[in-house]
């Protein structure tokens, strides 16, 4: 009677086990040395997961980077005006860079669970990654603006640039190669640090890597690893090309 209640007879189990056996056998036949680094059918089977993880990864990294980009310029300009308080800002930046990302993720999640339990779990990834990216961007912006020669600024002011035009058309323009260097670092950081989201099950390709290592699925791990590296390298190479072009036309020699 109990068996009937569960809705699963012995023959059912035998049938299912047979189906699983057949599936494993077909896998074994298609990839002779099972658990290979490259196995076409396994890759084919994992493709929807990989694509979904890739999309999630791009979204996570883009969100963190976009947030950082929006915050970075106002923060830098504010820091320029703070004067003696700049040391404090530098200290905060130093602390953020000194904290390992996983500690930040754990801290953020613990904080969010207490204060805003309604927020989705990916905010616990995007916020710390965005914070790290913001610090990287602010550092490069501040270094770039500080390296603009005072004579250039004075000359522009004498030529009648108002503060906004001075900032946009002279200072940021001159600092651009250095700022782009910061954007490159931040992009690579966003892509590779987003894998840490695997800790909360929201790591894009990081999830595939963690799951793959747990299952010993080499094909999936290799595919996800190649995708992560490509995802980190592609924007980097594009920005490097842009940086080279701009650098060669830079107003001031380095």
């Amino acid at each position: 009677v109990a068996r009937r209640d569960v809705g699963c007879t012995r023959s059912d189990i035998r049938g299912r086990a047979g189906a699983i056996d057949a599936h494993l056998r077909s896998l074994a036949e298609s990839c002779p040395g099972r658990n290979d680094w490259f196995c076409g059918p396994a890759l084919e089977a994992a493709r929807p997961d990989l694509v979904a993880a890739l999309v999630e990864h791009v979204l996570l990294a883009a969100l963190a980077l976009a947030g950082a980009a929006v915050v970075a310029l106002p923060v830098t300009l504010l820091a320029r005006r703070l004067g003696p308080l700049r040391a404090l800002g530098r200290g905060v930046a130093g602390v953020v860079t000194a904290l390992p990302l996983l500690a930040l993720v754990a801290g953020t999640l613990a904080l969010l669970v207490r204060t805003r339990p309604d927020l989705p779990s990916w905010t616990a990834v995007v916020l710390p990654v965005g914070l790290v990216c913001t610090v990287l961007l602010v550092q490069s912006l501040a270094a770039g603006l500080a390296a603009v020669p005072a004579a250039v600024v004075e000359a522009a002011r004498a030529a009648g640039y108002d503060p906004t035009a001075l900032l946009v058309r002279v200072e940021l323009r001159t600092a651009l190669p250095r700022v782009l260097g910061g954007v490159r670092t931040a992009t690579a950081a966003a892509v590779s640090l987003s894998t840490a989201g695997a800790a909360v099950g929201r790591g894009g390709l990081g999830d595939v890597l963690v799951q793959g290592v747990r299952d010993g699925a080499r094909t999936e791990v290799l595919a996800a690893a190649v995708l992560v590296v490509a995802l980190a390298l592609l924007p980097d190479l594009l920005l490097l090309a842009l940086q080279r072009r701009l650098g060669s036309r830079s107003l001031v020699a380095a």
Partner: protein
Amino acid sequence: VSAALDAALRAGLLHDLLVHGGVAALALALACVLALPAAVVRGHRRHGHPDRPRPGVVPVLALAAVLLLLPVPWGGSVPAVVVAVGVLCVPPLHSCAVSGLSVVEPAAVEALRAAGASERQVVRDVELVLAGPAVAAGVRRAALQALGGTALAGLLGGPGLGAGIARGLAAGDPDAALPAAAALAFAGLLTALLLGLVQRAADPRRRGERARPRRTPVPLP
């Protein structure tokens, strides 16, 4: 929190912290061996460019995952994580050292050459001394990346504090992960502080200033 701390200590938090530090230190040593000789050669030839620092962020999780699945003589948890994190630390170390060595005052180098020093002496006595703070800054950045990278490798079940944090977060109980996360943050801050002091101590100008008397003892004519 104190109950969680007690539980964490009983679960071997201290042991995990020591293992974490050890793995990160091994990785840093590997990165130094890989990065610095080439950096000294390239810096001596002044290949560095202050406007184009190399971003040093390799996706450590990807590398560690592939290495962890290698057959046993190469794979195995500790060697895989050390190699992955060590490779992660090479770019920042290399780029800091190269750009630091590239901007060493050329006059100082020429002066030593004029005095008949060999290239080896130029590198050892002038370039490495004057670029000391830059190299130390690179070591500091690399050390912090090593700590963070080792923690990330813990998501894959690697050694150190990361595995405990990952378990707590995966179980949906961030409070259980907090002691390990706090230990990790503490390790990061301590490393940054100590290596920051090393960086200051490595500055020969600072040392020179301390050795020199404040005022010229004899009024100059």
